[in-house]
């Protein structure tokens, strides 16, 4: 009987807003740690002189650099909004199916909106 198969799980299960936000919360959490470490390394590298600043400047103005900044902003804003949602859950609010669906959508839309706003502010500043 040890050969009994395992019934399919993630392959067949529908995604809901809440499960999508949940897994994204995890992924952005890990990504944020990586990115923050990278930023620290860059700041440290600035101490080594002018040359390093130039490299950063070129990178941030390249296509990949811009992609990087957008992902960075999105990842952080998503994490923050989703965390706020979790705080309310920890207090015992927002568990009704409808509420959790609406707050989930708000997290997704909000993070995109913040990303657009912050990225365009950067455009004005530079």
């Amino acid at each position, binding site marked *: 009987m040890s050969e009994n198969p*395992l019934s*399919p799980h993630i392959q067949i299960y529908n995604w809901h807003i*809440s499960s999508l936000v949940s897994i994204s919360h995890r992924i952005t959490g890990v990504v944020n740690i990586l990115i923050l470490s990278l930023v620290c390394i860059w700041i440290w590298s600035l101490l080594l002189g002018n040359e390093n600043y130039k490299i950063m400047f070129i990178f941030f103005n390249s296509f990949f650099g811009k992609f990087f900044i957008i992902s960075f902003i999105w990842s952080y804003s998503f994490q923050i909004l989703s965390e706020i949602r979790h705080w309310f859950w920890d207090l015992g609010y927002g568990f009704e199916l409808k509420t959790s669906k609406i707050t989930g959508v708000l997290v997704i839309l909000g993070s995109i909106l913040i990303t657009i706003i912050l990225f365009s502010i950067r455009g004005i500043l530079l």
Partner: protein
Amino acid sequence: MVQINLPQNSKIKKGYYFKDKTGSKNLRKVNIYRWDPSTGENPRIDTYEVDMDNCPSKVLDLLNKIKNEIDPSIAYRRSCAHGVCGSCAMNMDGKNGLACTKPHSEIKGDINIYPLPHLKVLKDLIGDLSTLYKQYESVQPWLKTTKKSDNNEHYQTKEDRSKLDGLYECIMCACCSTSCPSYWWNGDKYLGPAVLLQAYRWIIDSRDEDRKERLKKVADELKLYRCHTIMNCTNACPKGLNPAKAIAEIKKMLATS
């Protein structure tokens, strides 16, 4: 541990195709997960063409029709057919539910029916729930009190009784637990939404005197805190209960006590 892919012996193959013999014009395709322990072969998906003109409204009716008229070899659990016993819990159209309360008209396209996810399959749509039952036993789901009561019931106020609403209705069909990714990856240690909802049902019962011990027993990194509020459980519950909220209440009690 997280294992996304199915093991080699669980990979699903293409199965048989049962063409309609009634000549009906109102046909629907039903894809059903099949596994026969006697053959030693991998699981397969059999496809049935079903005459929907002569089929009652629920997915269970559809299964009964297939079993009675097309293929008697198909195995699934069922009993009350009224959403009370919880036997016919299965995965329909990518979501767990009771076949007897799920109308097939709600499903668009082909009707895909699988056993409850991430269980050891015993046959076809029947999954092995023995781990879940053992976990249920571990929370000691019975009244614990030192008060002797010779003739009377243990009384409680209306307010105290109302705290059990949304909990006592649980029929232990396992739709919630088997919809939970945390339970998929850590089902041997994490208690899962169904059992935790039951644990909370006894923790919150005013007649029970074992609240502290119950809380202590459940306060465990793996048993309780593997819940990350994915909410699949609440989405799946065919009785409209909210296991995610019950788990959060336990966490809250632990944090504030």
